[in-house]
């Protein structure tokens, strides 16, 4: 997948929208990732310059936080909760199932580019463990069958869109 597909103009506008506030770096990074799905490494000089930081500082921040990614995600991101409450309800089985079905590990994207798999440590849905998140929606009481169904729905949708 090409990583130079981002538009510097667009990024500049996003930076401009957030830079005039105290502690603007995280809001800037969120704005970029919300829009592009990731923070392109080549955009770091633009960010650094706008916020009067060094490139190393910006890179340090991007790499510190698990949320920010430096490569484009798949069409969908599936986050599986790995934390204790979900463990108590079978999340380890669920993770294995997802890895097998997608043929990838955490922080990777399925070969068809459909689903990126990410770990998450608690979604606050512990009363309905195990939990997963896709986009802004959280799903609970998961098992392998339900997860398969969810992934089927995602990939069918994608076909229709094409």
């Amino acid at each position: 997948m090409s990583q130079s597909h981002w538009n510097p103009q667009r990024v500049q506008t996003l930076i401009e929208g957030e830079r005039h506030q105290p502690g603007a770096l995280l809001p800037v990074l969120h704005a970029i990732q919300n829009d592009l799905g990731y923070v392109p490494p080549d955009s770091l000089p633009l960010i650094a310059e706008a916020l009067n930081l060094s490139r190393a500082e910006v890179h340090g921040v991007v790499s510190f936080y698990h949320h920010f990614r430096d490569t484009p995600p798949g069409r969908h991101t599936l986050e599986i909760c790995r934390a204790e409450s979900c463990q108590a309800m079978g999340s380890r089985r669920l993770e294995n199932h997802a890895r097998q079905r997608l043929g990838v590990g955490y922080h990777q994207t399925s070969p068809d580019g459909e689903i990126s798999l990410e770990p998450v440590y608690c979604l606050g849905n512990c009363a309905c463990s195990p939990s997963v998140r896709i986009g802004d929606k959280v799903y609970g009481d998961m098992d392998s069958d339900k997860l398969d169904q969810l992934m089927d729905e995602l990939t069918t949708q994608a076909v229709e869109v094409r």
Partner: protein
Amino acid sequence: MTVRVFVPLDTSACARGAEELALALQTRCGDDIELVRNGSRGLFWLEPMVEVETTQGRIAYGPVKVEDLDGLLEAGLLQGGEHPLQLGLTEEIPYLKQQQRLTFARVGVIDPVSVEDYKANGGFVGLQSALGKTAQQLVDEVKESGLRGRGGAAFPTGIKWQTVLDADPGDKAQKYIVCNADEGDSGTYADRMLMEGDPLSLVEGMAIAGLAVGATQGYIYLREEYPQAHKILNAAIAAAEKANYLGDNIQDSGKAFYLEVRLGAKAYICGEETSLLESLEGKRGMVRAKPPLPAIVGLFGQPTVVNNVISLATVPTIISKGPEFYRDYGMGRSRGTLPFQLAGNIKQAGLVELAFGTTLRQLLFNFGDGTRTGKPMRAVQVGGPLGAYLPESQWDTPLDYEAFIELDAVLGHGGVVAFDDSVDMSEQARFSMEFCVEESCGKCTPCRIGSTRGVEVIDRIRQGENAEDNKALLRDLCDTMVHGSLCAMGGMTPFPVLSALNHFSEDFESNPGEAS
């Protein structure tokens, strides 16, 4: 006549289908109903729970699926009619009735973003009266209430506020109120429920905190994992601004308070208050050495109150009902109530706000009704990923900060995660170390390297390699982490590890080939 019908918009209620249900109900009933999207009452096995307002009070139904709607409407749902899913008057459901809901009094009851609804249920009484009091009076009332921070460390809130009130803000003349809404602990969701179900109580608490210490700017540092709470908080802040409870002249008092939500980016350590402040400043979440305390040198170097969501949202109750009212609940030095959160393998998972002093067993069985799988319960982790695993012999301990410390355990933020007898406690211990590897800020060697070594040593124990020597090594390692770490991440990871080793030693006998 239109009937008021409630369908929660809470994340967990939606995870169980509340969104689809609300849509279907609205489509079917149209103008016959006024659909209110409330927070959750916190009885999650009954979600989605639909409530209907009747002359007798609100009648609940649950768990309701879209397929149930036809039958329910036929049975007279909108009049509170009889149906197998009918639960009776909501307030009379034993799980709810046996609680002492002070901080959560309005959660699930009101429309979370309606100032009108909030005020009709006792909202903004505290702020209104705070506007007529001196800063010192407000700090004194919080001190007298006995409130201790609900984020985990249980530090007296009034004393923290006094430090900030007394601190000199220097030339910049700015102090800050920062709400810690990072809620990273597994098994906890009280902050989320409150922000989704009664966000205005947090807004009000923060505004009162501002008046009490002389701060005009507030930030809510919210974890990225809570998109629904994010939306609702922003809507609530906009509503409060419009009604003049935030802004440059609150209720024409001449006093100002501004509030903004900032998003985290998935880092457990950013729940630690100094790491959180670094993050708010736009930096990596590296823990700062204390002193100086954030109360004196906090956000952007200025005096700053950092408090948990529940601590701040409890303040309006203290100010409106009086410190004695709150202090009269609880035991020993643990005053008031704590919203416990039942999670993991438990049949009736949910939010249980209780005065301190009842036992863990009551929580697990009277409220929780045992495990969801129906197998015997074996271990319970209290207080998040840095909290100890308690075996059955400790379940009669009263829920009290000091009683838990005596067990080398913590109440923390009130999360209670139950496990049945299929749990492998050496695997849990391994995870605690692995989590520390994953989430350490990296500043101290014992935390950063110690946890990596910890994973390796536990793997060796699990494989039966020099098990006894390696257990001794693990204890040494834990000791180094406890004593050589700057913050509780490295300093408390040994709690779950050692509790597993001490109370469930049979799981650390060799089981070759099973190490993952």
